[in-house]
């Protein structure tokens, strides 16, 4: 198929950026979206134009590195990551607009690449269970109810991609944050630090410049791992409880 691509080009964090138009022919529907961009980049390289920079690594939908706004939708039209999107989701003759994540807390680095290190700092602020190596009790000494363990697992599948933030009109990271709070809060091992954790992580979230949640729900719609919106209710509930008890 033949496509018209409008791609955000920006030389670095401080330069002005703009959408640039490219025509690309010979795209097959078995290609992944990123393989389509590989083909474009080979062409640009031959023609002497700087290839388009975009983040990617595993190309299996699990590392969370890929991050494109495709026709205004984070990760494009399907419920999956950009790297798992295939060209069979598009038609011959389509115009596709490709932009980086847009959010105040994710500054642009170059072209389609943004800086998501705010997520690491949120985790560092309390997104863990303190268990020094070697101090752990025998694994089966503390059973975890299966339904709770399943819920913990389901939300622990968050890949930290940031699509939720990009999709949110407020640029909030509440879905990402709620997923971590719920993952650790559902497990017996996560209880001792539960209340301090939520207060500290919410504080860091706000300090990074992410917006507040006003229950719009765009985040859950964009999330490639289908993290449910109710993790935000859990987050709010835990925060209220923590504050009530003076944490």
């Amino acid at each position, binding site marked *: 198929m033949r496509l018209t691509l409008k791609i955000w080009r920006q030389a670095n964090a401080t330069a002005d950026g703009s959408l640039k138009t490219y025509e690309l022919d010979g795209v097959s529907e*078995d*290609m*992944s979206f*990123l393989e389509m961009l*590989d*083909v474009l980049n*080979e062409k640009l*390289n031959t023609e*002497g134009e*700087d*290839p388009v920079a975009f*983040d*990617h*690594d*595993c*190309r*299996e939908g*699990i*590392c*969370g*590195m890929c991050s494109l706004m495709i026709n205004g939708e984070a990760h494009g039209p*399907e419920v*999956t990551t950009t790297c*798992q999107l*295939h060209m069979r989701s598009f038609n011959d003759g389509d115009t596709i607009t490709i932009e980086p994540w847009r959010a105040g807390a994710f500054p642009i680095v*170059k072209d389609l*690449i943004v*800086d*998501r*290190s705010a997520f*690491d700092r949120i*985790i*560092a602020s309390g*997104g*863990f*269970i303190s268990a*020094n*190596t*070697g*101090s*752990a*009790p025998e*694994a*089966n000494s503390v*059973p*975890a*109810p*299966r339904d709770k*363990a399943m819920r*913990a*697992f389901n939300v*622990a*599948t968050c*890949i*930290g991609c940031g699509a939720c933030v990009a999709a949110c009109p407020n640029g909030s990271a509440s879905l990402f944050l709620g997923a971590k709070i719920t*993952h*650790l809060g559902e*497990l017996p*091992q*996560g209880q001792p630090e539960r209340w301090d954790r939520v207060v500290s992580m919410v504080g860091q979230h706000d300090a990074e410049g992410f917006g507040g949640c006003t229950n719009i729900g765009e985040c859950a719609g964009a999330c490639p791992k289908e993290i449910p919106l109710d993790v935000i209710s859990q987050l709010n509930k835990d925060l209220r409880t923590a504050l009530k008890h003076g944490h």
Partner: protein
Amino acid sequence: MASTADVSGLTQLNSPSEQNSDDARGYYTLGEKIADTKAPKGLIAERWTKHKMDNRLVNPANRRKMSVIIVGTGLAGGAAAATLGEAGYHVKSFCYQDSPRRAHSIAAQGGINAAKNYKEDGDSTYRLFYDTVKGGDYRARESNVYRLAEVSANIIDQCVAQGVPFARDYGGLLDNRSFGGVQVSRTFYARGQTGQQLLIGAYQAMERQVAAGTVEEFKRHEMLELIVVDGRARGIIARDLVTGEIETHMADAVVLASGGYGNVFFLSTNAMGSNVTASWRAHRKGAYMANPCYTQIHPTCIPVSGDHQSKLTLMSESLRNDGRIWVPKNREDCTKDPRDIPEEDRDYYLERIYPSFGNLVPRDIASRQAKNVCDEGRGVGPMVGDFRRGVYLDFADAIKRLGEDAVREKYDNLFDMYARITGENPYETPMRIYPAVHYVMGGLWVDYDLQSNIPGLFVAGEANFSDHGANRLGASALMQGLADGYFVLPNTIREYLADAPFPAVDETDAAVVEARESVEQRINTFLSINGTRSVDSYHKELGNIMWEYCGMERTEEGLRKAIDQIRELRADFWSNLKVLGTNDSLNQSLEKAGRVADFLELGELMCIDALNRRESCGGHFRAESQTEDGEALRHDDEFSYVAAWEFGGDGGQPVLHKEDLIYTAIEMKQRSYK
């Protein structure tokens, strides 16, 4: 007990028996045998405990004054950073991704082994040790493997304490599944995302240390050179991938946990950025590269669909628990809808050839048999060259037996991924799979302490060669990465650091200046060749050579051809490469150029290693060495050694150092899974 020390110190230059079978003559020189692996003596079950006692301690107050560079944030590097940080050392952690959480370990699907014997099915530390040595076709160092089996149970405890949400049964206890090459259920898992959950555990533990101030993160940084001062590894040169700045980082010790180099084949299941650069730069500085030709080709991957293909996707081995592998008995049926082929016209070839292990034979065997049936013209799916390259992995029986919901619960994300990539629904029609490069057993040589032959340079995880011999069993890489990072390295590096802190090294030191300048010069060369070919085009061509001649089946003739072709390609690369852009900004083509340049050197060494090893063992299959029914045939009399290669200089010949493999706790046999 015969120890490696008994055979040490003998320089056996080209003894006659070695010369007779030496296919690689003319490509290398023979060096001294490896004298000491530091493996302790005594009963195998007591060695690690004793060694931990013997290794000196570092006073907590002193740890703060010591710094350790860790390159890599996968299971091995992440776990090591967290643990050394907790102990109070100053850790500098590097990764090329934008976050440590994205290291390639995240993609591991199926599970992690541990000898917990929760199923009461006869598992034990010894059995895990035995299975691993046998699975590795008796080419691993037994002391290391035993230690791995021994600490495996602690890993599960550690991960559960961190909140890793493993699968559980209805009573709330941990669940297990089976993997290839074994007859017990010892694999712990988190649906098809075990690597993700384990890595997030390690990452969170590491971030906790970032907050505590003991771990310093350098993200989007790539190590491009090792700094060796007065014979000790003392630092690295890294490039900030955003600004292009070339930085010098010094420390008391350097740990490489930079993963595997399967991407030398271009198409593999590895992440796009996985590379050999950190290891290769260390190799060029003197570190031995061990068994580089030992490559694992995984039997269950989604087949290639066209020329645009940028990577291959694994379908976890755990699927072989419930899926049945088959091809049509008759070539005429290969293009039919598989559902229309009656039972009697299907060949469940693994169940037929290996009745006792069936679909759960080890990976090397499953892969080679898939190749064989396709070579016979019984493959399915699109033609790739002269043959169809695919076999069926069929879940119809499992769905009938367990119900679709139960299958969904176990494998949903894998089935989804398959559907997305191929456009076919595996709940309705069998998956098509084919082997793909997945893992490398080879890597930098390390002793029992995970220290390379360069003092102060430690290597952990897939980057070292240590535990899997010539073939790795499923679910054992995660085990090894975490064993190295959480339990082994922190207990061995302290013996080295007991003599630290070492004298400060100035950035004007000749060794530092040399390292830095060589990096700068290389980058300038890439940017100024100004030829006509892209980095990717070289990478693809190298991959084709490697897959054709150094892939699932290797021959003397093919390997010689490959070496010639690689040399030619490398010369062309350095004269005709085209990399646009500049050094002082984010430049992905430039990053790739450095990686491919190193792959072009590694590929040649892999072929030389494969040429030298005129035997078949594990994932290394030399067509010249097989039994009558086509199984791998080892030659223990000649090749029961680790091949540790020393860099021989540009244009020079690599030097082979042999480490004899001596088994005291296990008897060497030809493997049989029939």
